[in-house]
């Protein structure tokens, strides 16, 4: 999809009352060049107390399209101010970009003040970008009373409009947006769309499955022209991790379900996907905003004494998922052993983050579900549709999801044992991937629960657009899914809330007393202007390691 001409550089500045036009751009309208140099918006991310990553992509010439490798090297100026009119500019810098990095710009704006809202913009060849807003994290030694985040995952552009992003962009009360992965999808048109018929509400560009570096760059560029995603990026800093589709479906360390030999070397494809991600996302990889210096994505962001957010990478280091080798109906991991989902280094790092010292709430950005879930008693005729959402094995017997932590139980056992042995409290896993909303306790022994203790809780946000159970069965919402939900909850007593039908976003509110997630659902994904409504809220009180229903959402929308 090409950039809409309606998205001029009178671009979106999400303000308190919603989108506001930037006057300064209009003032220079007479001198406007033949094309728009900031076609992909602005973004910020990974807020620290004194620094935040700023991002944009410039299109200095008409031919310098994403993935083209064409266009001149240019110098881009960036500015950070405390006011939207940039009278009080506190930081300013210049950075070179060019075709080698697909004309993306990513800088770490440092020496900022903690817990402060800032405005930022870029300038190239006399043209100024839309203005973005961001916020630094609270000081390390501070004790915030409250933190509030947007939480999203699984935004398939072909499956519909990103109304969830638009509604989050309209909120003024967020510290940041946590994106738990599947920020984009690799498929070509017709391969994975809206509903049972896989209708493309909007076709992907390029018009085929993305494999090469140029492909991944173009796909990132297409997503960043979406008006709702642009608005959200411009309004709040993002804290991102990837799941599988940022490379390809069900990826693991050395391969993926959706990678075939004729698509070339998997390692090369993965490297291309990671490079494009590093170029196009406002994230510090391997600890820096520089691109090409490493692709380690797991990292920690601290918010004073109240919370710490550890973002996991559960794709780059994992062993292959279990399979069902004929004729055995029993799934067996590749190599005949229970593999790792985190890799040794990441698991050791995570155990160090989950400690009694340090901040109170240990939030974990967790791309795939960690709560044990047996789908054993799901009605047989519904196993296939559930399988489409959740990827279950075996096809007969007692199925479980081999792509999430259930397929890697040794790592989960080590992690939960660590939490229990060290007396760690207030661990909250924030999860995406499964296109459905869940609130779960995390029992040490699911078989006897609620007897026995819980290691923490898991709150799962639903998808922005990607298909869920009702879309796959083709049935109306709250019909066939109800039976599946009831059966799963009956057989998994630690799962307190489950909604397999809705799309939307979540808001996470953190106070010393409790962590609460509010689930918001949107109307039809095919409706560009779909509304949003509050669905349910669940919370965990500090020290309890359990979720409980809450009667109303926190303020804001």
């Amino acid at each position: 999809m090409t950039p809409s001409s309606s998205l001029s550089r009178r671009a979106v500045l999400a303000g308190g009352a919603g989108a506001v036009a930037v006057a300064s751009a209009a003032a220079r309208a007479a001198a406007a060049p033949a094309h728009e140099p900031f076609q992909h918006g602005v973004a910020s991310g990974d807020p620290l107390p004194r620094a935040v990553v700023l991002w944009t992509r410039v299109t200095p010439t008409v031919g310098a399209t994403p993935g083209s490798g064409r266009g001149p090297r240019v110098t881009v100026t960036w500015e950070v101010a405390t006011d939207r009119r940039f009278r009080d500019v506190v930081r300013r810098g210049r950075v070179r970009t060019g075709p080698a990095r697909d004309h993306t710009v990513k800088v770490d704006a440092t020496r900022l003040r903690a817990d402060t809202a800032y405005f930022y913009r870029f300038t190239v060849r006399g043209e100024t970008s839309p203005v973005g807003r961001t916020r630094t994290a609270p000081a390390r030694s501070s004790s915030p009373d409250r933190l509030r985040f947007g939480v999203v995952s699984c935004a398939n552009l072909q499956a519909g409009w990103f109304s969830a992003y638009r509604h989050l962009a309209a909120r003024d009360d967020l510290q940041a947006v946590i994106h738990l992965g599947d920020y984009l999808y690799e498929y070509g048109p017709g391969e994975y769309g809206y509903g049972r018929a896989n209708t493309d509400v909007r076709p992907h560009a390029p018009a085929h499955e993305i494999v090469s570096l140029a492909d991944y760059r173009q796909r990132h560029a297409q997503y960043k022209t979406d008006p709702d995603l642009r608005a959200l990026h411009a309004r709040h800093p993002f804290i991102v991790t990837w799941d599988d589709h940022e490379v390809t479906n069900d990826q693991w360390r050395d391969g993926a379900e959706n990678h075939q030999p004729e698509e070339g070397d998997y390692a090369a494809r993965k490297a291309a996907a990671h490079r494009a991600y590093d170029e196009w996302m406002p994230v510090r990889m391997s600890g820096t905003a520089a691109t090409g210096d490493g692709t380690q994505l797991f990292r920690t962001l601290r918010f004073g004494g109240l919370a710490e957010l550890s973002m996991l990478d559960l794709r780059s280091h994992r062993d292959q998922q279990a399979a069902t080798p004929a004729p055995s109906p029993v799934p067996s991991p590749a190599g005949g052993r229970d593999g790792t989902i985190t890799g040794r280094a990441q698991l050791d790092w995570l155990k160090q983050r989950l400690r009694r010292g340090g901040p109170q709430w240990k939030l974990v950005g967790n791309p795939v579900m960690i709560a044990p879930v047996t789908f054993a008693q799901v009605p047989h005729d519904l196993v296939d549709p559930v399988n489409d959402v959740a990827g279950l094995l075996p096809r007969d017997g007692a199925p479980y999801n081999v792509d999430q932590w259930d397929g890697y139980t040794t790592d989960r056992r080590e992690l939960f044992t660590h939490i229990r042995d060290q007396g760690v409290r207030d661990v909250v896993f924030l999860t995406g991937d499964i296109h459905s909303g869940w609130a779960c306790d995390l029992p040490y022994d699911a078989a006897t629960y609620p007897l026995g203790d819980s290691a923490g809780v898991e709150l799962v946000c639903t998808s922005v657009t990607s298909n869920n159970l009702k879309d796959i069965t083709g049935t109306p919402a709250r019909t066939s899914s109800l039976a599946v939900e009831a059966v799963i909850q009956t057989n998994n007593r630690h799962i307190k809330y489950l909604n397999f039908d809705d799309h939307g976003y979540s808001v996470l509110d953190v106070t010393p007393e409790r962590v609460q997630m509010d689930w918001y659902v949107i109307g039809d994904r095919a409706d560009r202007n779909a509304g949003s409504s509050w669905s349910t809220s669940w919370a965990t009180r500090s020290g309890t390691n359990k979720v409980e229903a809450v009667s109303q959402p926190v303020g804001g929308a």
Partner: protein
Amino acid sequence: MVESPRDSRACGAFERGRHEIRTGRRTLLAAGAAGVAISSLPGAALAATAPTRKRAYVLVLDGCRPDEITPTLMPRTSALRDGGLNHPRATSLPVMETIPNHVMMMSGVRPDRSGVPANSILDRTTGEVRDMDRESDIQVRTIIERLNRNGLTTGTVLSKEYLYGVFGGRATHRWEPAPIVPVSGHAPDVFTMEAALAMVQEHDPHLVFVNLGDIDRLGHSDLTGPLGLKAARQAALASTDVQVGRFVDLLKSSGRWEDSMLVVLADHSMDWSLPHQLIHLSPVLALDPLLGGNVTIADNGGADLLYWTGDPTRLDAAVARMIALSSAVPGVLSAHDPRVTPSLRTGPLGGDVIVYAQAGWRFSDPDQYSNPIPGNHGHPATSPIPFFLAGGHRRVLGRTTSSRRAATVDVAPTVADFFGVGAPRGGYDGRSRLTR
């Protein structure tokens, strides 16, 4: 009875207390209506004229886990917590046992300064493993004496014999516990609370320090604990909650509430182990050529303290060997040399190596019959504790939850801050939880 220190140490703490009364060092004063016996320091009545209406009450729910204080199981305690300043991150400190944490509460300093690192230690002067239940075991001045020296009065209502022993005759007023459950060595909460109420009504000390022992005692012995059922434990929680309610009711009905600060906390948490999850260190150590016959173990539930009793010049080699061998035993979480793990701060009495159990395991040395009780603490899994301030005094923040860390060692500085009586030389190791 012969009046020599040696002999008085040879008998139990309660017997030593009775000896103090017989010899006139404490006076047995008017028993309350319920027949409660309270002994007092001579001249106590004079001190009670101090010009402050402030009162501080420290209620220890021995062995209570923070997640057990729920509106359904413990409605009164839960409401008290929700109305006060809650510290959900609070912890017990090493070793996560009753005596050292009660001493930390009252002294405000860690065991390397107070001299009380564990319930059970090797006393190198006698070569015996013994409980730290002697008044002389606490080597620093506690908040109790600090208040007394400032003209304020204090009271202890301690349900466990060894706590009664270690705090000894420090307080202005002391409950002489009765009746005592023979095996557990503690007084049931209903009697303990009867004594606390009588002490407040009859003597009205500025500080009262109360230990309610039922939750801990019924946790230790609850055979349904490892199965997650905790039947006896839950009954204890419910009944102790009633006792907490009685105390609050007295403060409110007698008009003391507006002048009062309550500190409600536990000394440690509780973990349950299945009968097959036992850790035996002594057979492993005994077989080692260096360590065999030269190591003494002081058993502290989920923590074993190992003492090197061989050639002092070989201590470093012995410590390294004890850590290596212990770490390999199934069920062991970790083994530490306190000299190089400064956060432990257990001091020289706390052993040369501290070995912790994993959750769901317990030490039983030398064999499986040595430690029959399923409920257990002392290891890191049992460090989270409830800890909150309540009461009507204006310095107690209401309906607030703090994300700051808190610990048992914070109690004395909080009480000192409340009464404005200052800190010991070298300062407190804990911090006041009152707002400035």
